[in-house]
């Protein structure tokens, strides 16, 4: 009985200690992933805008050359 009680206590302790909130962990991982994706999209948008602006500047200066 004494051994059984000890065993039960140990199992109980292990059960309490090993409880994890996996949903929370998954949500945190997903949020981190979304943040990374947002950063990637923002950077890509920035690059595209810069290139579009430079392309329109080039087009305008090339149009000036047509009159030469």
């Amino acid at each position, binding site marked *: 009985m*004494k051994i059984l009680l000890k065993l039960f206590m140990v199992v109980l302790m292990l059960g309490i200690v090993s409880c994890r909130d996996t949903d929370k962990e998954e949500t945190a991982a997903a949020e981190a992933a979304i943040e990374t994706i947002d950063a990637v*999209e923002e950077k890509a948008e920035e690059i595209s805008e810069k290139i579009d602006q430079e392309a329109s500047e080039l087009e305008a200066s090339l149009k000036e*050359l047509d009159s030469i």
Partner: protein
Amino acid sequence: MRNFKNIITVFVLAFFLGNGAAFAQDSELGNASKDVMKEKRDQMNDTKKKADNKADQLKDKSDAMKDKADAKRDKIKGDVDKVKDAAGDDASSISNGNADVMKEKREAMKAEADRIINSRKELADKYQEKLKNAKSEEQKAEIKAAMDKDLGALNDQIKDAKSELKEIDDLKDDVAVAKDEAKERAKEARKNKGNSDDAKLKYLEGRDLALARQKAAKAKLIERKQDISAKESMVSKGQERINAAKKRLAAATADGKLSEEEIAKKKAAIEKAEANLNKLDKSLKSGKATLDKQAETLDAVNQKN
């Protein structure tokens, strides 16, 4: 020891009773959460209906824009036919939107106009000399009549050439406007597609949402890389245009047609275009490398999830 055993037993009993109560509470909460879930599902259905309506509206808008674009294309085609009738040459290549052919045609027309202007100037000089050397008033009147007749004919030719040049320029402007409009339409279509994707993402959460976002971001990155590739051809074409302008400027300088000030102005324009071209070229290269790195980052996100 016995007391200790009793204490432990009471502890364990209290623990199970506590858990039992918690389970019972959970069950009540479960029922309550079922109601909340039902409410949420209804809300989601409403949102879905709204999204469907929005998608239908976008489709209608897209159809309307398509019709508008068709009308614009027909108008440009009509303009091209008009120039074809007026110029009587290969306007079919212009209708294909071939900018090079339009440019060549414009240059040929400009050269023709310059030639007529020069010959008019020479003729006017000759008549002026004849007028100076005329001995009688009668002779002067005869020369003046002949001069008015010949110069008038040349003036008409110059007027025609100028109006043809104007038509080509107008056509060029129309093509440029149509191109801009097409770009805007493509941009709006991409934006609409993005909105529809966003509406779909509203129903996802957690890992599924992250994966869907990763997929969408990857698709957008591919689109951006294609845009960069298209702009690379713009760089090579721009280089050709700059070289052609340099040749034209060299020829005009050799002929002595331009003043020092004009030459300096045109040289500055060429240098500005070259600087812009180099800047774009550099941005395209670095942009491509950055986008490749971003694609790798997105792949890593996918692997982690």
